[in-house]
Protein backbone atom coordinates (compact mmCIF):
# COMPACT_ATOMS: atom_id res chain seq x y z
CA UNK A 1 0.00 0.00 0.00
CA UNK A 2 1.34 3.36 -0.98
CA UNK A 3 0.69 5.97 1.66
CA UNK A 4 -0.07 8.65 -0.83
CA UNK A 5 -3.01 6.60 -2.10
CA UNK A 6 -4.72 6.22 1.24
CA UNK A 7 -7.79 8.26 2.10
CA UNK A 8 -8.39 9.17 5.70
CA UNK A 9 -5.94 8.85 8.54
CA UNK A 10 -2.73 6.86 8.17
CA UNK A 11 -1.08 6.55 11.60
CA UNK A 12 2.44 5.14 11.62
CA UNK A 13 5.11 4.61 14.24
CA UNK A 14 8.82 4.62 13.55
CA UNK A 15 11.63 3.82 15.96
CA UNK A 16 15.16 5.10 15.60
CA UNK A 17 18.39 5.03 17.54
CA UNK A 18 20.66 7.19 15.38
CA UNK A 19 20.32 10.51 13.58
CA UNK A 20 20.89 8.81 10.23
CA UNK A 21 17.86 6.63 10.86
CA UNK A 22 15.81 9.66 11.87
CA UNK A 23 16.77 11.39 8.64
CA UNK A 24 15.80 8.46 6.47
CA UNK A 25 12.48 8.06 8.26
CA UNK A 26 11.46 11.70 8.28
CA UNK A 27 13.15 13.82 5.62
CA UNK A 28 12.04 12.05 2.40
CA UNK A 29 8.56 11.71 3.91
CA UNK A 30 8.31 15.44 4.60
CA UNK A 31 9.94 16.43 1.30
CA UNK A 32 7.45 14.32 -0.61
CA UNK A 33 4.64 16.17 1.15
CA UNK A 34 6.10 19.53 0.19
CA UNK A 35 6.48 18.37 -3.41
CA UNK A 36 2.81 17.38 -3.48
CA UNK A 37 1.79 20.76 -2.01
CA UNK A 38 0.40 19.16 1.09
CA UNK A 39 0.40 20.92 4.48
CA UNK A 40 3.55 19.63 6.15
CA UNK A 41 3.87 19.81 9.93
CA UNK A 42 6.72 19.07 12.33
CA UNK A 43 5.71 18.57 15.97
CA UNK A 44 8.97 17.48 17.58
CA UNK A 45 11.53 18.51 20.17
CA UNK A 46 13.57 21.62 19.45
CA UNK A 47 16.66 19.65 18.48
CA UNK A 48 14.81 17.29 16.13
CA UNK A 49 12.86 20.18 14.63
CA UNK A 50 16.09 22.01 13.95
CA UNK A 51 17.63 18.92 12.32
CA UNK A 52 14.65 18.34 10.07
CA UNK A 53 14.03 21.96 9.07
CA UNK A 54 17.73 22.37 8.24
CA UNK A 55 17.63 19.20 6.15
CA UNK A 56 14.64 20.60 4.27
CA UNK A 57 16.36 23.89 3.58
CA UNK A 58 14.27 25.76 6.11
CA UNK A 59 11.41 25.67 3.63
CA UNK A 60 9.03 28.42 4.69
CA UNK A 61 6.07 26.19 3.95
CA UNK A 62 6.96 23.94 6.88
CA UNK A 63 4.61 24.35 9.85
CA UNK A 64 6.17 23.90 13.28
CA UNK A 65 3.67 22.86 15.96
CA UNK A 66 3.98 22.15 19.69
CA UNK A 67 5.17 18.66 20.52
CA UNK A 68 2.37 16.41 21.74
CA UNK A 69 2.57 15.97 25.47
CA UNK A 70 4.19 19.30 26.25
CA UNK A 71 1.17 21.56 26.51
CA UNK A 72 -2.47 21.24 27.39
CA UNK A 73 -4.42 18.08 27.96
CA UNK A 74 -4.77 14.91 25.83
CA UNK A 75 -8.37 15.39 24.82
CA UNK A 76 -7.76 19.08 24.11
CA UNK A 77 -4.91 17.99 21.83
CA UNK A 78 -7.35 15.75 19.94
CA UNK A 79 -9.78 18.69 19.63
CA UNK A 80 -7.05 20.96 18.28
CA UNK A 81 -5.91 18.34 15.80
CA UNK A 82 -9.48 17.97 14.55
CA UNK A 83 -9.90 21.74 14.25
CA UNK A 84 -6.64 22.05 12.34
CA UNK A 85 -7.67 19.30 9.94
CA UNK A 86 -11.11 20.81 9.39
CA UNK A 87 -9.50 24.17 8.67
CA UNK A 88 -6.99 22.72 6.22
CA UNK A 89 -9.52 20.62 4.35
CA UNK A 90 -11.92 23.57 4.15
CA UNK A 91 -9.05 25.51 2.56
CA UNK A 92 -8.72 22.85 -0.11
CA UNK A 93 -5.62 21.08 1.18
CA UNK A 94 -5.52 17.49 -0.11
CA UNK A 95 -3.63 16.10 2.87
CA UNK A 96 -1.80 17.07 6.04
CA UNK A 97 1.46 15.27 6.54
CA UNK A 98 2.98 15.29 10.01
CA UNK A 99 6.07 14.04 11.76
CA UNK A 100 5.43 14.02 15.48
CA UNK A 101 7.68 13.17 18.39
CA UNK A 102 5.30 12.67 21.30
CA UNK A 103 6.64 13.38 24.74
CA UNK A 104 4.36 11.26 26.84
CA UNK A 105 6.14 11.77 30.10
CA UNK A 106 8.84 10.45 32.36
CA UNK A 107 6.62 8.81 34.97
CA UNK A 108 4.00 6.07 34.69
CA UNK A 109 1.38 8.57 35.78
CA UNK A 110 2.31 10.98 32.99
CA UNK A 111 2.36 8.45 30.16
CA UNK A 112 -0.80 6.77 31.41
CA UNK A 113 -2.39 10.20 31.17
CA UNK A 114 -1.15 10.86 27.62
CA UNK A 115 -1.27 7.37 26.11
CA UNK A 116 -5.01 7.52 25.34
CA UNK A 117 -4.14 10.27 22.87
CA UNK A 118 -2.07 7.93 20.70
CA UNK A 119 -4.80 5.28 20.84
CA UNK A 120 -7.86 7.44 20.45
CA UNK A 121 -6.61 9.45 17.47
CA UNK A 122 -6.88 6.28 15.38
CA UNK A 123 -10.65 6.58 15.70
CA UNK A 124 -11.04 10.31 16.34
CA UNK A 125 -9.12 11.44 13.26
CA UNK A 126 -10.08 8.55 10.98
CA UNK A 127 -12.26 10.71 8.67
CA UNK A 128 -9.49 13.21 7.95
CA UNK A 129 -6.70 13.16 5.33
CA UNK A 130 -3.81 13.05 7.78
CA UNK A 131 -0.64 11.03 7.29
CA UNK A 132 1.02 11.01 10.66
CA UNK A 133 4.38 9.45 11.41
CA UNK A 134 5.17 9.28 15.13
CA UNK A 135 8.88 8.93 15.77
CA UNK A 136 10.31 7.47 18.97
CA UNK A 137 13.95 7.64 19.94
CA UNK A 138 14.67 4.26 21.52
CA UNK A 139 17.71 5.74 23.28
CA UNK A 140 15.67 8.27 25.21
CA UNK A 141 12.09 7.11 25.60
CA UNK A 142 11.19 4.92 28.59
CA UNK A 143 10.70 1.28 27.59
CA UNK A 144 7.09 1.42 28.82
CA UNK A 145 6.40 4.29 26.41
CA UNK A 146 7.94 2.33 23.55
CA UNK A 147 5.76 -0.66 24.39
CA UNK A 148 2.71 1.57 24.51
CA UNK A 149 3.56 3.06 21.12
CA UNK A 150 3.81 -0.42 19.64
CA UNK A 151 0.20 -1.02 20.59
CA UNK A 152 -1.29 2.26 19.42
CA UNK A 153 -0.19 2.52 15.78
CA UNK A 154 -1.71 0.37 13.03
CA UNK A 155 1.49 0.57 10.95
CA UNK A 156 5.20 0.33 11.67
CA UNK A 157 7.61 2.07 9.34
CA UNK A 158 11.28 1.37 8.78
CA UNK A 159 13.51 3.14 6.25
CA UNK A 160 12.67 0.35 3.80
CA UNK A 161 9.08 -0.67 4.42
CA UNK A 162 5.71 -0.10 6.02
CA UNK A 163 4.11 -3.12 7.62
CA UNK A 164 0.81 -3.76 9.28
CA UNK A 165 1.53 -3.75 12.99
CA UNK A 166 0.70 -7.15 14.54
CA UNK A 167 0.84 -5.61 18.02
CA UNK A 168 -1.79 -2.95 17.32
CA UNK A 169 -4.70 -2.85 19.78
CA UNK A 170 -8.02 -1.21 18.96
CA UNK A 171 -8.53 2.06 20.87
CA UNK A 172 -11.41 0.89 23.08
CA UNK A 173 -9.51 -2.20 24.17
CA UNK A 174 -6.36 -0.18 24.79
CA UNK A 175 -8.09 2.45 26.91
CA UNK A 176 -10.07 -0.12 28.88
CA UNK A 177 -6.85 -1.92 29.78
CA UNK A 178 -5.13 1.19 31.12
CA UNK A 179 -4.52 1.10 34.87
CA UNK A 180 -6.99 3.16 36.85
CA UNK A 181 -5.57 6.09 38.68
CA UNK A 182 -4.85 5.21 42.24
CA UNK A 183 -7.00 6.56 45.07
CA UNK A 184 -6.32 10.22 45.77
CA UNK A 185 -5.24 10.60 49.41
CA UNK A 186 -7.09 13.90 49.47
CA UNK A 187 -10.36 12.05 48.98
CA UNK A 188 -9.79 10.23 52.27
CA UNK A 189 -10.03 13.53 54.13
CA UNK A 190 -13.06 15.63 55.02
CA UNK A 191 -14.26 17.41 51.87
CA UNK A 192 -14.14 21.18 51.70
CA UNK A 193 -17.64 21.08 50.25
CA UNK A 194 -20.32 18.41 50.30
CA UNK A 195 -23.73 18.54 48.63
CA UNK A 196 -25.88 15.48 49.23
CA UNK A 197 -28.45 16.25 46.51
CA UNK A 198 -27.40 18.51 43.66
CA UNK A 199 -30.33 20.49 42.27
CA UNK A 200 -28.90 23.91 41.56
CA UNK A 201 -25.94 23.75 39.18
CA UNK A 202 -25.24 27.48 39.55
CA UNK A 203 -24.91 26.97 43.31
CA UNK A 204 -22.38 24.14 42.96
CA UNK A 205 -20.41 26.27 40.51
CA UNK A 206 -20.23 29.09 43.04
CA UNK A 207 -19.32 26.69 45.82
CA UNK A 208 -16.58 24.92 43.86
CA UNK A 209 -15.14 28.15 42.49
CA UNK A 210 -14.92 29.61 45.97
CA UNK A 211 -13.16 26.51 47.32
CA UNK A 212 -10.74 26.26 44.42
CA UNK A 213 -9.79 29.94 44.34
CA UNK A 214 -9.39 30.29 48.09
CA UNK A 215 -7.70 27.00 48.92
CA UNK A 216 -5.60 26.08 45.88
CA UNK A 217 -3.05 27.66 43.59
CA UNK A 218 -4.86 26.40 40.50
CA UNK A 219 -4.98 29.35 38.07
CA UNK A 220 -8.27 31.16 37.60
CA UNK A 221 -8.80 30.05 33.99
CA UNK A 222 -8.17 26.41 34.98
CA UNK A 223 -10.68 26.78 37.83
CA UNK A 224 -13.29 28.13 35.40
CA UNK A 225 -12.65 25.18 33.10
CA UNK A 226 -12.84 22.74 36.01
CA UNK A 227 -16.18 24.20 37.07
CA UNK A 228 -17.42 23.89 33.48
CA UNK A 229 -16.38 20.22 33.45
CA UNK A 230 -18.05 19.66 36.80
CA UNK A 231 -21.26 21.22 35.50
CA UNK A 232 -21.32 18.84 32.56
CA UNK A 233 -20.68 15.76 34.68
CA UNK A 234 -23.35 16.80 37.20
CA UNK A 235 -25.75 17.50 34.33
CA UNK A 236 -25.18 13.97 33.03
CA UNK A 237 -25.88 12.63 36.50
CA UNK A 238 -29.12 14.59 36.73
CA UNK A 239 -30.25 13.62 33.23
CA UNK A 240 -29.06 10.04 32.92
CA UNK A 241 -28.20 8.86 36.42
CA UNK A 242 -30.29 7.77 39.36
CA UNK A 243 -30.69 10.45 41.98
CA UNK A 244 -29.84 11.94 44.26
CA UNK A 245 -26.66 13.22 42.64
CA UNK A 246 -24.03 13.99 45.24
CA UNK A 247 -20.96 16.20 45.12
CA UNK A 248 -17.80 16.30 47.21
CA UNK A 249 -14.99 18.76 46.62
CA UNK A 250 -11.51 18.61 48.10
CA UNK A 251 -8.76 21.18 47.85
CA UNK A 252 -5.01 21.11 48.36
CA UNK A 253 -2.55 23.83 47.42
CA UNK A 254 -1.65 22.01 44.19
CA UNK A 255 -5.01 20.65 43.05
CA UNK A 256 -8.77 20.53 43.27
CA UNK A 257 -10.67 17.23 43.26
CA UNK A 258 -14.40 16.64 42.85
CA UNK A 259 -16.47 13.47 42.98
CA UNK A 260 -19.92 13.42 41.39
CA UNK A 261 -21.89 10.37 42.44
CA UNK A 262 -25.28 8.98 41.52
CA UNK A 263 -27.00 5.69 42.24
CA UNK A 264 -27.12 4.38 38.69
CA UNK A 265 -24.72 2.15 36.82
CA UNK A 266 -23.15 4.89 34.71
CA UNK A 267 -21.52 4.28 31.35
CA UNK A 268 -19.24 1.46 30.30
CA UNK A 269 -17.86 2.75 27.01
CA UNK A 270 -14.11 3.28 27.57
CA UNK A 271 -14.05 5.87 24.78
CA UNK A 272 -16.94 7.92 26.18
CA UNK A 273 -15.90 11.54 26.05
CA UNK A 274 -12.76 10.93 24.03
CA UNK A 275 -14.12 11.29 20.50
CA UNK A 276 -14.78 14.69 18.88
CA UNK A 277 -18.04 15.67 17.28
CA UNK A 278 -19.13 17.14 13.98
CA UNK A 279 -19.07 20.89 14.26
CA UNK A 280 -22.60 21.65 13.09
CA UNK A 281 -24.38 19.93 15.95
CA UNK A 282 -24.23 19.59 19.71
CA UNK A 283 -24.94 15.92 20.22
CA UNK A 284 -25.62 13.78 23.30
CA UNK A 285 -22.23 12.90 24.71
CA UNK A 286 -20.87 16.34 23.95
CA UNK A 287 -20.92 17.19 27.64
CA UNK A 288 -18.49 14.42 28.59
CA UNK A 289 -16.23 15.33 25.65
CA UNK A 290 -16.07 18.91 26.92
CA UNK A 291 -15.57 17.73 30.51
CA UNK A 292 -12.51 15.67 29.48
CA UNK A 293 -11.11 18.70 27.66
CA UNK A 294 -11.54 20.98 30.61
CA UNK A 295 -10.04 19.05 33.50
CA UNK A 296 -6.73 17.25 33.89
CA UNK A 297 -8.11 13.84 34.85
CA UNK A 298 -11.55 12.34 34.58
CA UNK A 299 -12.12 8.81 35.85
CA UNK A 300 -15.41 6.98 36.08
CA UNK A 301 -16.05 4.03 38.29
CA UNK A 302 -19.05 1.94 39.20
CA UNK A 303 -18.71 0.56 42.67
CA UNK A 304 -20.89 -2.45 43.58
CA UNK A 305 -23.46 -1.12 46.01
CA UNK A 306 -21.80 2.26 45.90
CA UNK A 307 -23.25 3.86 42.81
CA UNK A 308 -21.43 5.50 39.95
CA UNK A 309 -18.72 8.08 40.61
CA UNK A 310 -16.98 10.41 38.24
CA UNK A 311 -13.85 11.97 39.69
CA UNK A 312 -12.43 15.17 38.23
CA UNK A 313 -9.01 16.54 39.09
CA UNK A 314 -7.20 19.65 37.99
CA UNK A 315 -3.75 20.62 39.19
CA UNK A 316 -1.96 23.91 39.20
CA UNK A 317 0.74 22.60 36.90
CA UNK A 318 -0.82 21.86 33.51
CA UNK A 319 0.83 24.12 30.96
CA UNK A 320 -1.75 26.11 29.07
CA UNK A 321 -1.97 25.48 25.34
CA UNK A 322 -1.32 28.31 22.92
CA UNK A 323 -4.23 30.55 22.01
CA UNK A 324 -6.87 28.95 19.82
CA UNK A 325 -5.91 29.56 16.20
Amino acid at each position, binding site marked *: MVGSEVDGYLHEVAFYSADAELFSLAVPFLADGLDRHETVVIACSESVTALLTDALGRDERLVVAPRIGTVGRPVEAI*ARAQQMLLRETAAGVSRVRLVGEPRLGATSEEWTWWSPFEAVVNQALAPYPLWGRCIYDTRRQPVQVLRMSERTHPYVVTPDARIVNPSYVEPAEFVRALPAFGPDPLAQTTPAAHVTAVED*LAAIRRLTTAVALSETAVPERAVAEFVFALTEVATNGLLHGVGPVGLRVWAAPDRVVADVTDHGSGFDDPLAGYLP*FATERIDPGHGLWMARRFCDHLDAECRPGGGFTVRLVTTQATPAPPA*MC
Partner: protein
Amino acid sequence: MTFGEEFHTALGWDGHQLLLHKTETQRLAELAAWVRDGLDRNEKVVYVQDSRSDEGFGVLVALAEHGIDIEAAISGGQFEFVAPGEFFTPGGPSRRVERALATSGAGVRMSTEACAMSRAASAGMCEKFERVVEELCRRYPLSALCQYEQQALSGTSLREAAEIHVAGIRSPQLHTAREGAGLVLAGELDLANGELLAALLGAACEAANGHLVLGMRQVTFLGVVAARALVEGTQRFRDQGGQVMLVAPPANTEWFLRALGIDRMAHVALEEGG
Protein backbone atom coordinates in the same frame (compact mmCIF):
# COMPACT_ATOMS: atom_id res chain seq x y z
CA MET B 1 -29.24 40.03 46.91
CA THR B 2 -31.45 37.99 44.61
CA PHE B 3 -30.32 37.03 41.15
CA GLY B 4 -32.82 39.52 39.80
CA GLU B 5 -31.51 42.38 41.83
CA GLU B 6 -28.07 41.91 40.32
CA PHE B 7 -29.41 42.60 36.88
CA HIS B 8 -32.47 44.78 37.23
CA THR B 9 -30.47 47.97 37.32
CA ALA B 10 -28.83 46.91 34.07
CA LEU B 11 -31.86 45.42 32.34
CA GLY B 12 -34.59 47.30 34.16
CA TRP B 13 -38.08 46.31 35.14
CA ASP B 14 -39.82 48.01 32.22
CA GLY B 15 -42.03 46.47 29.60
CA HIS B 16 -44.02 43.25 29.54
CA GLN B 17 -42.11 40.81 31.70
CA LEU B 18 -42.45 37.19 32.69
CA LEU B 19 -41.36 36.34 36.21
CA LEU B 20 -40.55 32.63 36.32
CA HIS B 21 -39.99 31.41 39.84
CA LYS B 22 -39.08 28.13 41.44
CA THR B 23 -40.06 28.99 45.00
CA GLU B 24 -42.33 31.41 46.81
CA THR B 25 -39.30 32.99 48.43
CA GLN B 26 -37.84 33.77 45.01
CA ARG B 27 -41.15 35.05 43.67
CA LEU B 28 -41.75 37.43 46.54
CA ALA B 29 -38.18 38.72 46.53
CA GLU B 30 -38.35 39.53 42.81
CA LEU B 31 -41.82 41.00 43.22
CA ALA B 32 -40.57 43.26 46.01
CA ALA B 33 -37.73 44.51 43.82
CA TRP B 34 -40.19 45.23 41.02
CA VAL B 35 -42.61 47.06 43.33
CA ARG B 36 -39.81 49.09 44.92
CA ASP B 37 -38.59 50.14 41.49
CA GLY B 38 -42.05 51.38 40.57
CA LEU B 39 -42.64 53.21 43.83
CA ASP B 40 -39.23 54.88 43.60
CA ARG B 41 -40.21 56.16 40.16
CA ASN B 42 -43.56 57.44 41.44
CA GLU B 43 -45.43 54.98 39.29
CA LYS B 44 -48.79 53.60 40.30
CA VAL B 45 -48.67 49.90 41.13
CA VAL B 46 -51.75 47.81 40.37
CA TYR B 47 -51.75 44.26 41.75
CA VAL B 48 -54.34 41.85 40.42
CA GLN B 49 -55.33 39.84 43.48
CA ASP B 50 -58.07 39.79 46.06
CA SER B 51 -56.72 41.93 48.91
CA ARG B 52 -58.67 39.86 51.41
CA SER B 53 -57.34 36.52 50.19
CA ASP B 54 -54.41 34.62 51.70
CA GLU B 55 -52.40 35.35 48.57
CA GLY B 56 -53.12 39.06 48.82
CA PHE B 57 -52.21 39.16 52.49
CA GLY B 58 -49.04 37.20 51.75
CA VAL B 59 -47.99 39.83 49.22
CA LEU B 60 -48.49 42.64 51.73
CA VAL B 61 -46.46 40.83 54.38
CA ALA B 62 -43.65 40.02 51.93
CA LEU B 63 -43.41 43.59 50.66
CA ALA B 64 -43.20 44.87 54.22
CA GLU B 65 -40.56 42.28 55.07
CA HIS B 66 -38.51 43.56 52.13
CA GLY B 67 -38.51 47.04 53.58
CA ILE B 68 -41.32 48.60 51.57
CA ASP B 69 -43.70 50.91 53.47
CA ILE B 70 -46.66 49.26 51.80
CA GLU B 71 -49.20 50.83 54.14
CA ALA B 72 -48.04 54.29 53.12
CA ALA B 73 -48.07 53.29 49.47
CA ILE B 74 -51.66 52.07 49.76
CA SER B 75 -52.91 55.03 51.75
CA GLY B 76 -51.13 57.41 49.35
CA GLY B 77 -52.85 55.78 46.40
CA GLN B 78 -49.64 54.51 44.88
CA PHE B 79 -50.39 50.81 45.37
CA GLU B 80 -53.76 49.17 44.90
CA PHE B 81 -55.28 45.76 44.53
CA VAL B 82 -57.80 44.95 41.84
CA ALA B 83 -59.91 41.81 42.11
CA PRO B 84 -59.24 39.16 39.45
CA GLY B 85 -62.96 38.90 38.81
CA GLU B 86 -63.01 42.55 37.80
CA PHE B 87 -59.75 42.54 35.87
CA PHE B 88 -60.16 39.37 33.82
CA THR B 89 -63.25 40.46 31.93
CA PRO B 90 -63.59 41.74 28.37
CA GLY B 91 -62.11 45.23 28.41
CA GLY B 92 -61.10 44.84 32.05
CA PRO B 93 -57.34 45.37 31.60
CA SER B 94 -57.77 48.47 29.41
CA ARG B 95 -60.26 50.07 31.81
CA ARG B 96 -58.09 49.45 34.81
CA VAL B 97 -54.91 50.69 33.16
CA GLU B 98 -56.58 53.83 31.83
CA ARG B 99 -58.08 54.58 35.24
CA ALA B 100 -54.68 54.18 36.88
CA LEU B 101 -52.96 56.35 34.30
CA ALA B 102 -55.50 59.09 34.91
CA THR B 103 -54.24 59.43 38.50
CA SER B 104 -50.55 58.79 37.92
CA GLY B 105 -48.17 61.28 36.46
CA ALA B 106 -45.33 58.86 35.96
CA GLY B 107 -46.78 55.70 34.50
CA VAL B 108 -48.29 52.49 35.76
CA ARG B 109 -47.03 49.02 36.51
CA MET B 110 -49.28 46.05 36.90
CA SER B 111 -48.77 42.49 38.03
CA THR B 112 -50.80 39.31 37.83
CA GLU B 113 -50.23 35.87 39.26
CA ALA B 114 -50.78 32.90 36.95
CA CYS B 115 -52.89 31.17 39.58
CA ALA B 116 -55.22 34.17 39.85
CA MET B 117 -55.51 34.33 36.08
CA SER B 118 -56.20 30.62 35.68
CA ARG B 119 -58.93 30.74 38.34
CA ALA B 120 -60.65 33.65 36.64
CA ALA B 121 -60.22 32.69 32.99
CA SER B 122 -59.79 29.67 30.73
CA ALA B 123 -56.39 28.78 29.23
CA GLY B 124 -57.37 30.22 25.88
CA MET B 125 -58.56 33.45 27.52
CA CYS B 126 -55.32 33.68 29.52
CA GLU B 127 -53.32 33.79 26.33
CA LYS B 128 -55.66 36.46 24.95
CA PHE B 129 -55.22 38.55 28.11
CA GLU B 130 -51.46 38.26 27.72
CA ARG B 131 -51.69 39.62 24.20
CA VAL B 132 -53.98 42.42 25.37
CA VAL B 133 -51.44 43.34 28.04
CA GLU B 134 -48.67 43.24 25.44
CA GLU B 135 -50.61 45.70 23.31
CA LEU B 136 -51.30 47.95 26.32
CA CYS B 137 -47.59 48.02 27.14
CA ARG B 138 -46.90 49.24 23.61
CA ARG B 139 -49.61 51.87 23.71
CA TYR B 140 -49.22 53.28 27.23
CA PRO B 141 -46.45 54.03 29.76
CA LEU B 142 -47.21 50.64 31.30
CA SER B 143 -45.02 47.84 32.59
CA ALA B 144 -46.50 44.45 33.37
CA LEU B 145 -45.09 41.58 35.40
CA CYS B 146 -46.72 38.20 34.81
CA GLN B 147 -45.83 35.68 37.51
CA TYR B 148 -45.60 31.97 36.63
CA GLU B 149 -44.21 28.99 38.46
CA GLN B 150 -41.34 27.73 36.29
CA GLN B 151 -42.23 24.05 36.54
CA ALA B 152 -45.79 24.81 35.38
CA LEU B 153 -44.55 25.83 31.93
CA SER B 154 -43.14 23.38 29.43
CA GLY B 155 -43.59 22.42 25.82
CA THR B 156 -46.34 24.43 24.13
CA SER B 157 -47.16 26.58 27.16
CA LEU B 158 -43.51 27.53 27.54
CA ARG B 159 -43.15 28.38 23.87
CA GLU B 160 -46.26 30.57 23.98
CA ALA B 161 -45.06 32.37 27.11
CA ALA B 162 -41.60 32.83 25.62
CA GLU B 163 -43.03 34.25 22.40
CA ILE B 164 -45.06 36.88 24.26
CA HIS B 165 -42.32 37.82 26.74
CA VAL B 166 -39.20 37.21 24.67
CA ALA B 167 -37.53 40.48 25.76
CA GLY B 168 -38.87 40.41 29.30
CA ILE B 169 -37.83 37.17 30.94
CA ARG B 170 -37.03 37.28 34.64
CA SER B 171 -36.17 33.75 35.72
CA PRO B 172 -33.77 32.52 38.42
CA GLN B 173 -30.82 32.25 36.04
CA LEU B 174 -31.84 34.03 32.85
CA HIS B 175 -32.99 37.53 32.12
CA THR B 176 -33.65 39.04 28.71
CA ALA B 177 -34.16 42.56 27.45
CA ARG B 178 -34.45 44.42 24.17
CA GLU B 179 -31.40 46.35 22.98
CA GLY B 180 -32.08 48.16 19.73
CA ALA B 181 -33.17 45.50 17.28
CA GLY B 182 -31.36 42.81 19.25
CA LEU B 183 -31.98 40.71 22.31
CA VAL B 184 -29.84 40.84 25.44
CA LEU B 185 -29.28 37.63 27.39
CA ALA B 186 -28.03 37.82 30.97
CA GLY B 187 -27.25 35.11 33.48
CA GLU B 188 -26.06 31.53 33.63
CA LEU B 189 -27.29 29.21 30.92
CA ASP B 190 -27.38 25.52 31.79
CA LEU B 191 -29.79 22.63 32.36
CA ALA B 192 -32.03 24.90 34.44
CA ASN B 193 -33.07 26.98 31.43
CA GLY B 194 -32.18 25.01 28.29
CA GLU B 195 -35.79 24.53 27.22
CA LEU B 196 -36.62 28.16 27.96
CA LEU B 197 -33.61 29.37 26.00
CA ALA B 198 -34.53 27.28 22.97
CA ALA B 199 -38.11 28.63 23.11
CA LEU B 200 -36.88 32.23 23.43
CA LEU B 201 -34.48 31.91 20.55
CA GLY B 202 -37.13 30.32 18.36
CA ALA B 203 -39.42 33.27 19.08
CA ALA B 204 -36.64 35.81 18.58
CA CYS B 205 -35.76 34.27 15.23
CA GLU B 206 -39.38 34.53 14.07
CA ALA B 207 -39.26 38.28 14.68
CA ALA B 208 -35.69 38.83 13.51
CA ASN B 209 -36.02 39.68 9.83
CA GLY B 210 -32.90 37.81 8.78
CA HIS B 211 -30.46 39.09 11.41
CA LEU B 212 -30.58 38.08 15.06
CA VAL B 213 -28.22 39.97 17.34
CA LEU B 214 -27.77 38.47 20.80
CA GLY B 215 -26.04 40.64 23.40
CA MET B 216 -24.01 38.25 25.54
CA ARG B 217 -22.04 40.66 27.74
CA GLN B 218 -23.77 39.43 30.88
CA VAL B 219 -23.82 35.72 30.11
CA THR B 220 -21.47 34.54 32.81
CA PHE B 221 -21.85 30.81 32.09
CA LEU B 222 -22.93 28.84 29.04
CA GLY B 223 -22.82 25.05 29.19
CA VAL B 224 -23.43 22.31 26.67
CA VAL B 225 -27.21 22.15 27.25
CA ALA B 226 -27.44 25.89 26.51
CA ALA B 227 -25.17 25.53 23.50
CA ARG B 228 -27.47 22.85 22.16
CA ALA B 229 -30.45 25.17 22.72
CA LEU B 230 -28.61 27.94 20.89
CA VAL B 231 -27.88 25.69 17.93
CA GLU B 232 -31.28 24.00 17.75
CA GLY B 233 -33.29 27.11 18.61
CA THR B 234 -31.78 28.96 15.65
CA GLN B 235 -31.37 26.01 13.26
CA ARG B 236 -34.38 26.63 11.06
CA PHE B 237 -33.64 30.37 10.96
CA ARG B 238 -30.05 29.74 9.90
CA ASP B 239 -31.05 27.06 7.41
CA GLN B 240 -33.16 29.72 5.72
CA GLY B 241 -30.17 32.05 5.54
CA GLY B 242 -30.66 33.96 8.79
CA GLN B 243 -27.54 35.27 10.48
CA VAL B 244 -26.95 35.03 14.22
CA MET B 245 -24.46 37.40 15.84
CA LEU B 246 -23.24 36.68 19.38
CA VAL B 247 -21.96 39.95 20.76
CA ALA B 248 -19.30 40.53 23.39
CA PRO B 249 -19.53 37.52 25.71
CA PRO B 250 -17.21 37.65 28.73
CA ALA B 251 -13.81 36.00 28.26
CA ASN B 252 -14.67 32.60 29.75
CA THR B 253 -18.00 32.39 27.94
CA GLU B 254 -16.27 33.31 24.68
CA TRP B 255 -13.67 30.61 25.30
CA PHE B 256 -16.38 27.99 25.90
CA LEU B 257 -18.32 29.08 22.80
CA ARG B 258 -15.18 28.70 20.68
CA ALA B 259 -14.28 25.38 22.30
CA LEU B 260 -17.78 24.13 21.50
CA GLY B 261 -17.31 25.27 17.92
CA ILE B 262 -20.33 27.56 17.98
CA ASP B 263 -18.37 30.31 16.19
CA ARG B 264 -17.60 27.94 13.31
CA MET B 265 -21.19 26.94 12.66
CA ALA B 266 -23.01 28.09 9.56
CA HIS B 267 -24.42 31.61 9.81
CA VAL B 268 -23.09 32.22 13.32
CA ALA B 269 -20.63 35.01 14.04
CA LEU B 270 -18.98 35.82 17.34
CA GLU B 271 -18.04 39.42 18.02
CA GLU B 272 -15.52 39.74 20.80
CA GLY B 273 -15.97 42.06 23.72
CA GLY B 274 -14.05 45.29 23.77
